[in-house]
């Protein structure tokens, strides 16, 4: 008798477990390592989400940033992942290629609280294809001590001021090449070009068509070429990436640089920096009517088109991009919500950066939203470098870029 009831009980438990397991929705989420929110942050947040939503289980996968695109492409249509971490430049491509789904409409109050530039990165052809999650832009970093030595109390507010300060620093022999910029032939160059063309009132594409060959862009490229020629921008910038310019700045060999948020931590790290404590962060200087501009390096969370549980995926995305999660983990990525910038937890995580970020985010510029962005960016990098190296005039370089860009747009 006892045996029978044990068997019966076991059977019921099994069926119950089966039913319970069958009810549980399993989501697969793809994130990246080494940048943005840390793996610990994401795991903690996910666990919290699962506690609040017992019917959903989320499996996390972390891959190198380089592999992100390839994994999304190979998995998305086939449903290998439900939630994927995308990147701004991918939006147009993924939208057109049917790789990600459109997101459900946002509440108006929410929409108003998100920095418009960040939201804009997820928009294509009037629809939204992801929710902003990692927030990152480039800032002006400056060496406070060097500026003081040259008699400047404040960092430059305009490009002209920056050039003037740089000239003074060079003349006073405080530093040989005052400005160092990440102009390597890689995506980083397109990022800076986005910033600088915006500062001159130009844009690289409009309505999906390239608009490279115009006065504003020419002025921007001319400015870049001249800055190198005058010895104000380190000529090796053409081979430097973001990491390299950190090395130069942290070694005390530059007074100004444009870089992402993470550079603040790196240049203040005693184990690898000689300028700890002298690092200042400010908004990218403006130019003429443009108060400031900075390229968007943020990354959205998207729903994969092959997902079988888009509703649950959206719930997870709402949680991870939501105020609770972002307030709790501001160290590695500042929030997308304007209202959180006065939150004490956020402010105390990095007071200097938060102060600047609050206002810098109003001047976010997005890279061209075209489906052929990768090829476009690669081509543009080559042309810009040719101009920077003096092999072509800025005019010629942009003209060719426009022609080739139009060919890509076919």
């Amino acid at each position: 008798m006892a045996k029978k009831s044990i068997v019966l009980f076991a059977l019921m438990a099994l069926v119950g477990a089966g039913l319970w397991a069958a009810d549980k929705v399993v989501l697969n989420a793809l994130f990246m390592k080494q940048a943005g929110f840390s793996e610990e942050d994401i795991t903690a947040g996910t666990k919290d989400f699962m506690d609040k939503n017992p019917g959903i289980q989320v499996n996390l996968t972390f891959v190198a940033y380089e592999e992100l695109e390839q994994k999304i492409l190979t998995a998305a249509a086939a449903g290998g992942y439900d939630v994927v971490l995308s990147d701004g430049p991918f939006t147009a491509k993924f939208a057109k290629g049917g790789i990600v789904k459109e997101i459900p409409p946002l509440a108006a109050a929410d929409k108003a609280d998100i920095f418009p530039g960040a939201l804009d990165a997820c928009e294509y052809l009037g629809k939204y294809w992801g929710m902003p999650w990692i927030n990152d832009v480039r800032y002006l970093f400056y060496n406070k001590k060097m500026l003081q030595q040259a008699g400047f109390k404040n960092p430059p507010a305009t490009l002209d001021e920056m050039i003037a300060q740089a000239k003074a620093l060079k003349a006073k022999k405080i530093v040989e090449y005052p400005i160092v910029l990440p102009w390597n032939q890689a995506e980083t160059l397109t990022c800076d070009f986005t910033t600088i063309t915006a500062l001159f009132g130009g844009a690289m594409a409009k309505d999906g068509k390239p608009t490279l060959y115009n006065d504003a862009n020419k002025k921007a490229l001319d400015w870049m070429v001249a800055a190198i020629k005058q010895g104000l921008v380190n000529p090796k910038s053409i081979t430097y990436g973001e990491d390299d310019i950190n090395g130069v700045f942290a070694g005390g060999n530059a007074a100004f640089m444009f870089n992402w948020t993470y550079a603040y931590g790196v240049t203040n790290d005693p184990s690898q920096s000689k300028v700890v404590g002298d690092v200042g962060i400010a908004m990218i200087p403006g130019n003429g009517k443009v108060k400031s501009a900075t390229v968007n390096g943020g990354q959205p969370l998207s729903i994969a088109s092959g997902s079988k549980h888009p509703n649950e995926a959206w719930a997870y995305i709402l949680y991870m991009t939501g105020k609770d999660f972002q307030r709790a983990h501001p160290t590695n990525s500042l929030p997308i919500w304007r209202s959180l910038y006065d939150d004490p937890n956020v402010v105390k995580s990095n007071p200097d950066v938060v102060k600047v970020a609050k206002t810098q985010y109003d001047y976010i510029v997005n890279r061209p939203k075209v489906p052929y962005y990768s090829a476009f960016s690669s081509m543009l990098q080559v042309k810009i470098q040719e101009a920077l190296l003096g092999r072509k005039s800025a005019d010629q370089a942009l003209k060719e870029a426009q022609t080739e860009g139009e060919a890509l747009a076919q």
Partner: protein
Amino acid sequence: MHRVVPQPARGRGRGGEGDLSEQGFAFLLLSPAALLIVVVVLVPLIITFVYTLTDMNLLSDTKGRFMGLANYGAVLGSSWFWESLGRTLYFTFVSLILEVGLGLLFALLLAGSFPGVGALRALVILPWAIPTNVSGALWKWILHPDYGALNALLSWLGLIKEYQAWLGQPWLAMNMVILADVWKMAPYSAIFFLAALQFINRSLYEAARIDGAGVFRRFRYVTFPHLVPTLLVVVVMRSMEKFKAFDLFYIMTKGGPANGTKVLTYDAYLRGFDNLDYSAAATISYVIAFLVLAFTIVYLRLGRQEDIHD
């Protein structure tokens, strides 16, 4: 293959007599391998071929449409294809010449006898042993524009005034990838040549020496003729491998700078995984496959010739 296998008079074993059971047995033995290859290679190969006949460009408005041979026309008619092919051929031939040349020199040295040659023979294979991805990353590190050991060394020796960006110029980057490939594979070729050298009859050298032939003449009239078969095999085999090269380019240069190292395989990868143009990727892959087929046929013909020579 012309000898006749005598049929056993009385066979108690299975499959001992009759052609049919021999065939059956053969197919039995072959089946696991055949099944694996058919499933993993042949079926995808056919599917990819179908891709080359359809519009599989995820960004195109005519996705899914049957295109016939139009994809091939588009690819073969595009200048970027021929440019990539040119780069691939440059890489293949230059690194082949360097690898075979260096390998031959190594082999000639290692065939000699001097103190330490035994240890050297054991050590020389090390570059080949380390995985390609490690050697790629290692060379990328050595060639780093700011922290690289090559810059440090050359500058310390006074050979360069300024640190160079070895992977920063298209043509230079390609040659640096060749350097990395040659460093790793010259020992591999050297081993082939060394084995062949060791088969050459010593007395031939003695005879040549008695006849008054110097080092170079001995090489030209004794060594080289005996090396030719191995040389041919190595050349064709290594060319095939180099034509398919991908890993080094992914790790060291990602096809840049300015497409300077974008070889065919990498071009196919980018078109598929970056531009979402799967049909272009598939088409390029098939062109590569056809060229590889051509190489394979040459390789087999050479192999048959070698059989005849022996």
